């Protein structure tokens, strides 16, 4: 599949705004299609083999084996912004708070940084703004004309334990309200009990409800606890048609970790090889620093390749990370370490 830009505000200048650049999705020489639901194959679920210690070792060497410096580092941090779902999911969210977030989403970097880096033509924005259903309309309005999609957490987020019909209905309402992306949560108990058909049916139902909206399936990896559970849930969600698999709600005690991400990314790779379909990945929760951003990008690049550095296949779920990235970019320009208060908050 050729990556379709999320929006199409064309520009003749070079380089093109980041959102319209498209690259083919190829893995090990094979061009992949967008994911769609396929029949549940229990062999793939039961055939999962994950060695926790080995995964942890590999995750640790991911950090040690790769680093980016200077201009490359700056470029990679910009990439992290482009792949960021700028998020607010708090009990005290309000319309104004969401509007403030949207303003930052439109202009993630201060003008002098954009000019200093010479990236005016990129028209860099974040990948999406992620809010509760209640603020979808507010966000859509605030982002009008920016091309930035609104993502809504849905389906009984974060616990996912309200009646199925209500969860499906919630997705319908969010889509109607203008959400182009839907982040659903799965019923974790289905995983604990090995109810793969139920899990598959649930995710498939959500996907159907989401229609053309991009659907990210949150596995609640902090709740699932074991890496094998994470892998099994990943397989079922992908077969049920999820466009993305996502680690966490941000509400679990353990959020996105590199070992968990590595397991999910390996599942995406195997799934692509077996099905010919590309599924995206979204680590969320606990990713706060610019260093973490480049760590995850390097992992995506090494494990899946360049196509998974596009917002169509990779997103960070983050709220605080943007500020740290902005500080690092300023440091890149000035050579001085910046302070948080010098940058507009989201």
């Amino acid at each position: 599949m050729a990556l379709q830009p999320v929006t199409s505000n064309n520009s003749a200048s070079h380089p093109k705004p980041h959102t319209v650049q498209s690259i083919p999705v190829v893995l090990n020489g094979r061009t992949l299609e967008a994911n769609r639901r396929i029949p549940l194959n229990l062999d793939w679920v039961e055939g999962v083999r994950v060695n926790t210690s080995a995964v942890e070792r590999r995750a640790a060497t991911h950090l040690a084996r790769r680093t980016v410096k200077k201009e490359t580092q700056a470029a990679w941090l910009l990439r992290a912004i482009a792949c960021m779902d700028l998020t607010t999911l708090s009990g005290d969210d309000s319309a104004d708070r969401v509007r403030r977030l949207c303003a930052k989403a439109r202009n993630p970097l201060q003008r002098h940084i954009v000019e200093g880096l010479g990236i005016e033509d990129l028209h860099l924005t974040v990948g999406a703004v992620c809010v509760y259903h209640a603020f979808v309309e507010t966000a859509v309005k605030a982002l009008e004309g920016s091309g930035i999609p609104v993502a809504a957490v849905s389906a009984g987020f974060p616990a996912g334990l309200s009646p199925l019909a209500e969860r499906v209905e919630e997705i319908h309402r969010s889509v109607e309200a203008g959400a182009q992306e839907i982040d659903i949560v799965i019923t974790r108990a289905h995983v604990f009990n090995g109810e793969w058909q139920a899990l598959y049916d649930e995710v498939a139902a959500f996907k159907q409800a989401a229609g053309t909206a991009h659907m990210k399936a949150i596995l609640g990896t902090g709740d699932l606890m074991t890496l094998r559970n994470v892998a099994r849930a990943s397989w079922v969600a992908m077969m049920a048609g999820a466009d993305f698999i996502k680690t966490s709600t941000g509400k679990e005690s353990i959020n996105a970790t590199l070992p968990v991400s590595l397991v999910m990314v390996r599942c995406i790779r195997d799934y692509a090889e077996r099905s010919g379909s590309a599924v995206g990945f979204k680590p969320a929760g606990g990713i706060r620093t610019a260093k973490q951003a480049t760590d995850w990008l390097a992992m995506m690049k090494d494990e899946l390749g360049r196509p998974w550095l596009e917002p169509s296949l990779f997103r960070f779920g983050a709220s605080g990370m943007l500020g740290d990235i902005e500080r690092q970019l300023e440091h890149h320009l000035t050579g001085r370490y910046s302070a948080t208060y010098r940058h507009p908050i989201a």
Partner: protein
Amino acid sequence: MSIAEKFYTMEYGAAPEDPKEAVQWLDRHHRRFDEFIGGAWVQPASGEYQTTSDPSTGETLAEVAKGNTADVEAAVFAARKALPAWQALSCHERARYLYALARQVQKHSRRLAVLETMDNGKPIRESRDIDIPLVARHFYHHAGWAQLLESEFPNYQACGVVGQIIPWNFPLLMFAWKVAPALAAGNTVVIKPAKYTPLTALAFAELAMEVGLPPGVLNVLTCDAKTGQALIEHPGIDKVAFTGSTEVGRTIRLATANSTKKLSLELGGKSPFVVFDDADLDSAVEGLVDAIWFNQGQVCCAGSRLLVQERVAETLYTKVRARMESLRVGPPLDKAIDIGAIVSPVQLESIRKMVDAGVAEGARCWQPSNPLPEKGCFFPPTLLTDVHPAATVVQEEIFGPVLVAMTFRTPAEAAELANNTIYGLAASIWSENINVALDLASQVKAGVVWVNCTNQFDAACGFGGYRESGYGREGGREGMLEYLTPEWLHTLPAAPEKAARPSAPEIDAPEETTSPLITSNIDRTVKQYIGGKQARPDSGYSFPVYGRDGELLGEAPLGNRKDVRNAVEAARNASGWAKTSAHNRAQVLYFLAENMIQRRDEIAHRLSRAVGPHPRNDQSEIQAGVEVDLSIERIFTYAAWADKYEGFVHHPPGRNITIAMPEAVGAIGILAPSEAPLLGLLSLVLSAIAVGNTVVAVPSDRYPLIIGDLYQLLDTSDVPAGVVNLVAGRPAELAKTLAEHDGIEAIWCFRSNEEADAVRAASIGNMKQVWTNDGHEYDWFNPAQAEGRWFLQHATQVKNIWVPYGE
């Protein structure tokens, strides 16, 4: 490229480590290094220097002294001179020095890492995250052993002056593995770093000066291999420790054959990396990266032979090839490089030739498309498939980033293929089923086994090989023992220089025996005991055995090489003895003692005509009776030990256990001492079989008729056929056949120095372990010296099995 363009390409840019500090250090030394002898920098006697260079650029880094034999003399002299004062220090005082060295390494870790990478070509990530931290850890750990030396190793003493030769693949880490235990045990050291990579050893010498290590305790010689040989041959060296190729190990064995120098060798390998169909394949692929694409594959324990279960072979190969595409080969000082430079053009050429030879023999060669740097010594990661056990690239160590891959069908075949090698250093086993993994771990002939991991090292865990990968262990308690000897050993009287005159002089002239054989002796036919059967000697000859007063006691079979061959065959076929439960082995031994008690008087009676009064105790006491009684006790001792000689569980950092398991060495050849024909023979045989070895023992020529008594006991005591084989004849002649036999894994010679020297020289073929009386005559009548752990240590080799856990 602009930032906006980089935003699209998303390539890794350069991420160079700044070498400034290391370069300044080289400049401070004016890029010329003398040798470190007696606590000072000493110019080489030759006045000559050789260069060392950066293999990634070819650029010369520094000139280093070219030592010669005069420097060897000076260094050994300095080490000997420093020895008494170093040994006079308290354990605590030595511990303080080792601790200070650990701290000093840590304080200067980055400079050492950069220097290592410049001199060796390994990626800075590895020298920074693996080599140097392990160096510091090794000194910390051994500071602890220094502190605990007296309490944990009572009745042991240091070997003395240790000569050490280390390779270029992990220059400072191997330096630490050698120096830390040697110093902790109270030895002084002369060490020769590899010609290609001398710099970090010299930097360490400077750190030793900074912490005030007493002069002469550590001496660093930079010289060529020939001068290195002079070091190990030097009579002032008491112990030799070597890490390097099996080929060089063999020349060291030969060079030290005429000495009682204690030896530990850590040699080459062709270690299997076994992947079962239920393994986490993605993790196994990363394991391979750590196994064969670590340090450019220049690792003695590299998992260089991939054995994968047929069912998942193609899947795994596909994953491996994909992974190889993302390996970055390039300047080793770049922090985001996976594979650095090969150490030298010579090594690069050797790798290239091996790969070409493999392809010529039919291997399919796969290399990723990633470009190599244009200059410098680089070789791409390489996968060779369509290879078979008969291929050169499967049998021989390549010592480069080259993996050979084969398939297996069943766990039994995996074990067979894994062990189908002359080497036995390490093995890596991947399966999500702990039963499957541990079952193979127990079968594989290797000193280190990594379950679901690979190339894990820690100072607390023993490292070392089986078979032609050498012997001795480095790390942990087992590693400390390599630098210690029992105190009592040095108090024993000297062994005879020459072999005793053979009592079987001229076989082709038996008619010269004029005195008629005593009737009571002639009707007692003594044969060889092979495979549980009494066997006539292949030669068809017998030889007369005379008593202490010259009387003819009888005739013993005259064994020859074919008897030895048959006996070794029988011993190898009885290898199931090692798998018999320890409880069962104990039962068999107790039963043996029981039966000996029954026959005590007749055995003593016959023996008394051969052996004189007790040599050490009350002259009136008859040795024969004492020998038999002590033999019975000794059997009890080893029956007791059979189920009590246990291993350890090491605790390296991280979530895993490392099981240090003593295993039987295999088939052991034993040349029994003359001084106590029964007790000496049994002391050796029993310690061997108690822990599961099988033996081919040659009784002393003083009284070989003892085998007639022994096989009757063995036959009636349920000792399985082939566990003990007894071959009488001329010991020196049989010793040669045994020593040369590749089916014998260890040989013990407790006879004259001349015979011990011959055994050492003849046993280098398969690098079998040699244990001798080290020029002493053991007191077989003293249980404190003639039985127990010292013997069991030699009867076993330690296998360290790493088992990480976690869900």
